[in-house]
């Protein structure tokens, strides 16, 4: 069995850590598999070396192996890793700007930058996500950046096969709030055109339309809005759940971290319910059709 000097062991650990960072975010690559490949290669190359293996001997083997980036030279990167890499220079620039500030502000900024720099890559992303989220309360567009950074951190953890652990308390606030907002917007957007359409019924026709709908003139607009909303929403949910039944991974991509819990069976149940509601809605469409024709005829 090959033994390494403490210095060589540190050298190897550093190289493996760099390889792990380089391969993170690349689709289809398992960091643990690559780590094993590197270790197997190094130990095979040093099979006949004098023991314990020195850092210089190890360095020669790793030099021939190539830089960590070589392990992913022809592999595609995930979009989240790409975004994280793109955000890195922005972070560095911000640190430079903090350095340019005078006096106490500079000292405070330097202290913060040093702390962030001292963190591991994963924790750094998590803190940046939370930081952007907090500042986003004053300048809301930053929430979008916070959302993407949080997603990058979650993707990184997933690709490394790690649990988020305590990091989730930093990452989840932007992720959950934006995901929930996005989910609500996508689920309920058909209500807006339905309400808008219901306002199109001219005031002069309301009493006639009320007779046709068998409701009081005051109730015409709310009833029409409700009727149209039920139709548009049930139709939209039928289409959306059909898409999810076909592509069950989609909610996980759109609404992390909880979207991945939506299974095909859940989508099927929603599909059946929304399709049933839509069919019932269609069965009442004759009155709506008459009302529409009457409104159009008199306009």
């Amino acid at each position: 069995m090959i033994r390494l000097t403490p210095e060589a062991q540190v050298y190897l650990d550093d190289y493996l850590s760099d390889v792990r960072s380089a391969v993170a975010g690349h689709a289809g690559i398992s960091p643990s598999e690559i780590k094993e490949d590197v270790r197997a290669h190094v130990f095979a190359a040093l099979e006949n070396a004098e023991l314990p293996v020195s850092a210089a001997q190890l360095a020669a083997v790793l030099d021939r192996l190539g830089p960590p980036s070589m392990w992913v030279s022809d592999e595609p990167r995930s979009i989240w890793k790409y975004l994280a890499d793109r955000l890195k220079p922005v972070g560095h620039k911000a640190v430079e700007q903090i350095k340019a500030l005078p006096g106490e502000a500079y000292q405070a900024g330097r202290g913060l930058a040093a702390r962030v720099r001292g963190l591991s890559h994963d924790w750094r992303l998590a803190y940046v996500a939370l930081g952007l989220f907090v500042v986003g309360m004053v300048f809301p567009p930053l929430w979008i950046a916070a959302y993407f950074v949080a997603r990058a951190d979650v993707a990184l953890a997933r690709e490394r096969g790690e649990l988020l652990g305590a990091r989730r308390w930093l990452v989840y606030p932007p992720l959950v709030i934006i995901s929930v907002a996005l989910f609500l917007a996508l689920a309920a957007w058909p209500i807006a055109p339905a309400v808008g359409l219901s306002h199109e019924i001219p005031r002069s026709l309301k009493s006639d339309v009320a007779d046709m709908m068998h409701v009081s003139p005051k109730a015409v607009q709310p009833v029409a809005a409700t009727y149209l909303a039920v139709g548009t929403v049930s139709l939209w949910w039928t289409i959306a759940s059909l898409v999810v039944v076909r592509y069950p991974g989609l909610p996980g991509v759109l609404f992390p971290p909880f979207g991945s819990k939506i299974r095909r069976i859940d989508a099927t149940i929603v599909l059946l319910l929304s399709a049933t509601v839509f069919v019932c809605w269609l069965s009442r469409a004759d009155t709506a059709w008459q009302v529409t024709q009457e409104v159009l005829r008199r306009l």
Partner: protein
Amino acid sequence: MESDFFDNWTTQLRKGILELGVLAALRGRRLYGYDIVKRLGDIPGLVIGEGTVYPILSRFRRDGLVTTTLVESNEGPARKYYELTPLGRRELVRMRGSWRAVRDGIDSLASEVDS
């Protein structure tokens, strides 16, 4: 300038040929990663960074061109042996055919002036 052009050309050439080299090294035998790297390293100019071979092996495994078997080793971590699958063997035959056709074609072009 001339050197840049040549370096770029050899890089591009190597990229395609290395995949053929990996499959050819595995023809009719089972080898572990380091062994493949050493054998390819014996071909002048083919392997610049030994680490480039492993991503190719991983991709070949995902694409079903090779299979792997882990074998315990007394010297260190378990060794991962690679072996061509029937698909890998077929692809190797096709790739060697293409390689020979290109090589022979260029050789004959170059020898037209001599003859």
